[in-house]
């Protein structure tokens, strides 16, 4: 048998695991898994804050638009009331003139 064959046999021969190997394996399997970065509570908090800010900005924009619409509507109403007042006043004036001549 050559020296090479001896070396190969020694390398491949069955060896018993060291003492406590099974216990170490079991211990590793019950160890907590390392959390993934995207499930980190900080990420969720940041996302929550960002979503809150977006909702807040959206709410402010809606409220701003509502106020602008309210102001424009009130201005239009005032103009309409003024237009009707002038129209009726002038028609009344004409009516009085016509009645005065009859």
């Amino acid at each position: 048998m050559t020296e090479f064959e001896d070396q190969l046999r020694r390398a491949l021969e069955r060896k018993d695991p060291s003492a406590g190997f099974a216990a170490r394996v079991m211990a590793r399997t019950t160890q907590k898994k390392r959390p993934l970065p995207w499930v980190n509570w900080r990420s969720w908090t940041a996302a929550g804050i960002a979503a809150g800010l977006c909702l807040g900005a959206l709410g402010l924009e809606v409220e701003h638009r509502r106020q602008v619409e309210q102001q424009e509507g009130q201005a239009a109403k005032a103009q309409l009331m003024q237009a009707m007042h002038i129209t009726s006043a002038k028609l009344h004036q004409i009516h009085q003139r016509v009645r005065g001549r009859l």
Partner: protein
Amino acid sequence: MINGRIIFLLAMAPAWMCGQPVKLDSLDKLSEKASETVTVSLDGSLLKMASRFLSSDDPDQAQIKKIVAGLKGVYVRNFEFEKPGQYQQSDLEPIRNQLKDPKWKKIVEVRGRDNADVRLRQEDENTISGLAVIVAEATELTVVYIDGPVDMDGLSKLAGTFGIPEDIGSKVEKEKEKDKEKKPK
């Protein structure tokens, strides 16, 4: 080319048939001389918006809401001057020229120290599609143009609160009767 023109004319016909809106812009230059100016220009969308803010509980506002419902526009120019002669009758010519269309019926005309005209635009015997009022006084000039189906009954109901003559509707009827009498049989 000719076909294109015909299609264009046919497409524009409904707009012409409904009557051109009266433009009051030519009067705006008078605001420089006037001591007080009121300019109201409410197109259809602004009228709708204004209408939404009119209270249904207030009888006057509720009545105005009803009158305004079908209108396309309300335009008013009112100028008050410090002294007479600040505006010329020629300033009104662009407006009067627009009212020369036969659809505009003269309802009231007052000539004297102050001049006043009330005209209604009639598309047919039963449809009033506009009201124009011109009152030219020594120190005040007022032009009103209401575009759309003017509810004369509704306007009459405003009498007393807004001072609109109650019998203005009957004046329109009288004018119709006069027109019928004039037509050859």
